[in-house]
């Protein structure tokens, strides 16, 4: 299904979503699923630009963006369907990273830069990245050491080092968080700007993650995306949304791994029986299945809460609940899948490793389960105090 036609149709929402799901599945099957990820890993930029253009044609890069910028203005639920489908095929394209997170910040901030950049993102001709975390790895948007400095002539420059920027090497520009005298600010810096340098590290998947140094990069007011509360709100909301979508991708991949594993248990014969007839393995598989179902349930709640209540503490709670469950479940299912396959599960030529690595990446990204359990506890304590007050 080409999503550009979706708004015009009169089928009801459930049918629309089913069609979208089928469309993602059809794309994945047509393009070879995990084998594509295998072919592209450890290459630069780690994904397929022609596939990216295809995503643009399908409208997948426009889903949640407002109509004002040429977007489809659909909900997080639709985007989650895409994330889950692509996650199930370990598709390497940075849809969540570039579109939902980086372009998402621009979209929530609005203004001239959003107007200028987002249509290019939707067309697939510009890939932005969000550079917000520092090398401490803190997930607090306030924990920013990068600074906007004003020189004696009133000229501005950006100075600092941003870490954990996924696909930095493929990005055409960065939305950078920093502080100036008034607090948090967001600037747009083209990747080609003077003073911007990148170093790369390989993630478990083979994809690159960048450390971006901004060495007194000259910026002007035209580069300013947003400041103070507007900046904090835009950044915060986009991070929440990307966290939910990472959870959706984890659900997609854990489901696929569970399917692969159950299938293997049915066909692998040892001691004259399919190993799936051994009760100890059956019960372990059931426990994985339960974790998948809980992940599904938690994800659905997070989508609903975040769509309904935006950047609220109850939405934060639901998002953290989903990310904690999905991260743990995906890692557990992948680890157990390797165990239940035996030696073949540990070989590079079998697909499981691709999924395990993707699970490692998406469970660590935007906060692992430990981080999100702690955040949930904070949310819960705040609520409890709110109730008491």
């Amino acid at each position, binding site marked *: 299904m080409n999503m550009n036609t979706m708004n015009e149709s009169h089928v009801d929402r459930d049918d629309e979503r089913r069609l979208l799901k089928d469309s993602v599945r059809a794309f994945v099957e047509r393009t070879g699923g995990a084998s594509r990820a295998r072919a592209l890993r450890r290459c630069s930029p780690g994904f397929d630009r022609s596939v990216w253009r295809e995503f643009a044609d399908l409208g997948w890069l426009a889903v949640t963006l407002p109509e004002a910028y040429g977007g489809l203005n659909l909900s997080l639920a639709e985007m989650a369907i895409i994330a889950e489908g692509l996650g199930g095929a370990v598709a390497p394209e940075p849809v969540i990273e570039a579109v939902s997170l980086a372009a998402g910040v621009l979209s929530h901030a609005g203004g001239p830069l959003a107007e200028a950049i987002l249509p290019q993102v939707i067309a697939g001709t510009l890939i932005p990245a969000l550079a917000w975390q520092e090398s401490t790895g803190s997930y607090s948007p306030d924990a920013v050491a990068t600074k906007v400095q004003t020189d004696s002539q009133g000229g501005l420059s950006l100075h600092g080092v941003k870490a954990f920027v996924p696909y930095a090497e493929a990005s055409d520009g960065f939305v950078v968080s920093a502080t100036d005298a008034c607090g948090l600010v967001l600037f747009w810096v083209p990747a080609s700007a003077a003073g911007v340098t990148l170093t790369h590290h390989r993630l478990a998947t083979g994809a690159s993650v960048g450390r971006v140094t901004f060495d007194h990069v000259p910026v002007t007011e035209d580069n300013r995306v947003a400041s103070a509360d507007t900046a904090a709100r835009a950044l915060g909301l986009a991070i929440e949304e990307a966290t939910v979508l990472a959870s959706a991708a984890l659900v997609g991949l854990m489901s696929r791994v569970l399917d692969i594993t159950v299938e293997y248990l049915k066909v692998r014969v040892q001691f004259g029986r399919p190993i799936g*007839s051994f009760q100890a393995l059956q019960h372990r598989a059931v*426990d994985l299945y339960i974790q998948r179902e809980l992940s599904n349930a938690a994800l659905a709640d997070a989508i609903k809460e975040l769509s309904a209540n935006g950047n609220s503490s109850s939405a934060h709670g639901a998002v953290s609940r989903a990310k*904690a469950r999905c991260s743990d479940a995906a890692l557990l299912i992948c680890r157990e899948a390797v165990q239940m396959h035996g030696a073949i599960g540990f070989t590079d030529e079998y697909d499981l490793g691709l999924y395990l690595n993707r699970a490692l990446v998406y469970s660590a990204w935007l906060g692992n389960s430990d981080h999100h*359990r702690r955040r949930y*506890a904070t949310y819960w304590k705040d609520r409890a105090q709110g109730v008491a007050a």
Partner: protein
Amino acid sequence: MTDWNAMDDEDFRQDVRRFFEQKYPEQLRYPLQRLRWAEIKGWYLTLAEKGWLAPNWPVEYGGMGLSPAKFLIFLEEQERWGVARTPDMGMTMVGPLLIKHGTDEQKAYYLPRILRGEHIWCQGYSEPNAGSDLASLKTSAIIDGDEFVINGQKTWTTLAQDATHIFMLVRTDPQSRKKQEGISFLLVDCASPGITVRPIANIAGHEEFCEVFFDNVRVPKENIVGEINQGWSIAKAMLSFERITLGSPKQSQYALGRLELLAHQRGILEDPVFLDKFTALQLDVADLASAYARFADVVRRGEALGPDVSLLKIWATETYARISNLMVEAAGAAGAMGGKIDFGAAQIDVLGNFYYARPAPIYGGTNEIQRNIIAKNVLGLPS
């Protein structure tokens, strides 16, 4: 007569809630164990008088005739307020059974007596050698003239000592090829000569179960429900709804609240290590509640539950057990004290929760059986 189903859901919920809050005895809220007839009789009769004893029976038989959606609201409010289960086998099992499979005489005789609180039913399924493997039951019922003659033993019969009647599975054809065949469904008056009930205390000291012995107990032939030798399929069909009620998150939510109170009183709620464990359990319960809601939607739409509903029972009972384990740990030096313990302003029965979490993974089909069901019927793994 009120057409409950025509009401707005929220209005109905408020009505039900108000009734429970006004009429249900405060001291009986959230009991850990099943209440005895002497304790719950008053409430039973209050419900009977209100006409609310049998929410999901059709109106023509004296029920409220609630739709699945309304019935779920009723159950939710019941659980929310901590309303105890009555000896409800008559309402939940015998009534629906007779309405579907009973003769007109059976319906006319039994249903009103259940609704009047005159007949209290218990369930005679398990036997000493037929627990998880229920179909291997041996209690026999041999036709002799116009009567069945029952010999054998049932066990784990909940509150049989309070029951006036027992509905039971018996073997009517010992020669059947498959063990599931040759089983029939009988209705038996507990006052029949030859029946002996022996209560069994559990580790919490309560006599919730009984053994029931049958020594040449004679029962009229017309007390059979459905066809002879067809009892197994009837019994199996009746279990489906039980699987979602056993997967309710309410028990865990209540226990989590007690744990929070305990931790607060002991001053460890802010302790990071405790808080981390507590939060993990909160997430387990929240995800349970959310998964439960998805299955409840299926019921609400009037659709049949699939075998995947077994996951609720597994997760609900094992989560409850983990909460109760943490409660013992969090109680520290007081973690081995029986009964209600003073923690500052609050009195908490630490071990009560711990004890009652033990059988939860066992009853209603052990969690091993539930895992077998998912392995075979959901994942399609081979035998």
